[in-house]
């Protein structure tokens, strides 16, 4: 992939500008980054995108680390010939995380007092409650875009069954996330899902 300095810049600007729209957290941003990185620019592959999310989930820490992983994979793809992949990957990881966090942190830092004072006001309550259904819609799309990447007609049924089973287990039981991920890894390693 041929990625120039201005491409780096537009990635970082995109992270920074999406930061203040991340209502509901990192999950709600997945559809937007999927559109940006894959549909609009083809800077990440479907498999890199879904593994960014998978590894961040399998590793402890805040969910926002999945955005850093997208930066990691972008860094790998942007590495010029003859340079170390990892140097650019770490650069992508750190700079994307920094850009994704800083604007929203600054906003929180400055707005906290105001919100604390007005938390019971009707406008703030309506903001909080009114956005909830929209945020949930956006989160459901996150789930959808990861699986849709696998929408090849032949041999895709195990993928849907596994995604659906996980969804039901999370919805109705308290199965620990690590068991679910380990199960997915085992089934995937057996070759049942094919490699991408």
């Amino acid at each position, binding site marked *: 992939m041929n990625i120039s300095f201005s491409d780096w810049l537009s990635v970082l600007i995109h992270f920074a500008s*999406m930061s203040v*729209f*991340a*209502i*509901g*957290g990192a*999950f709600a941003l997945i559809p937007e980054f999927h*559109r940006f990185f894959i549909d609009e620019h083809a800077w990440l592959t479907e*498999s890199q995108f*879904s*593994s960014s999310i*998978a*590894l961040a*989930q*399998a*590793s*402890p*820490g*805040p969910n*926002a*680390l999945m955005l850093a*992983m997208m930066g990691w994979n972008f860094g790998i793809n942007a590495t010029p010939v003859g340079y170390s992949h*990892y140097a650019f*990957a770490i650069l992508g*990881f750190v700079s994307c*995380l920094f850009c994704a*966090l800083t604007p*929203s*942190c600054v*906003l*929180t830092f400055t*707005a*906290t007092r105001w919100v604390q004072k007005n938390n019971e006001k*009707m406008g703030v309550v*309506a903001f*909080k409650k*009114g956005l*909830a*259904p*929209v945020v*949930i*819609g*956006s*989160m459901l799309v996150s789930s959808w875009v*990861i*699986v849709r990447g696998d929408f090849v007609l032949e041999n895709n049924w195990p993928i849907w069954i*596994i995604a*659906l089973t*996980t*969804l*039901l*287990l999370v919805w109705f039981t308290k199965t620990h*996330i690590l068991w679910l*991920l380990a199960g997915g*890894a085992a089934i*995937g*390693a057996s*070759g049942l*899902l094919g*490699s991408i």
Partner: protein
Amino acid sequence: MYSFVIHLKNYYMEQKVSIPQKGPKSLAELYWAMTKLALQGFGGVFPVAQRVLVEERKWFTPQGFLEEWAIAQVLPGPNIVNLLVMSGSKWFGAMGAFVAVAGIFSMPGLLLILVAIFFEQFREYPAVSGALHGMGVVSAGLIGGTSLKMAGSLKAHPLTFLGAITFTTVTFILLAVFKFPLIPVLLVMGTSSVLLTYLKIKHSRVAKEGE
């Protein structure tokens, strides 16, 4: 990092900034508490945050934690990060906010980089790329299940369950089927939903006062 934190602590001592009685005693304590908390949180850190900050450390009362959390949810950005910026700055000013956020990201970030290097090294093996693929599919289910769990809370929504679900569905269609960018969708759907909710709340409050 540790010596850096000690340095900051000394800086604050010199400035004679009073350290509040509740909450962590020092920036170092804050940093390590956040690191420990973050390393226990798989698939998000909220459940762990509540246990560690309220029950173990007693930096928050249960009620106080929920109130702060509600505010963290209103503001954009990851909820846990907002919570830490708010409490960190309450305890130690801007430096406290920075140290808390650095604490929650530094060690897990380092660990994730190591995990990513490991997978990158062995990506060529079909079993490893297959395992990654399987975990990706499970992640999709995880996020879907979490969203549907949250959708349960819409039952008590001012717009009624049906009204709220309509907004959820239209948002889904706009993003998933028509692939619109998030910002216009959030502006149009979010604004109309917030506006309708506002009118509904106002209406019911007026009705209550009239009784």
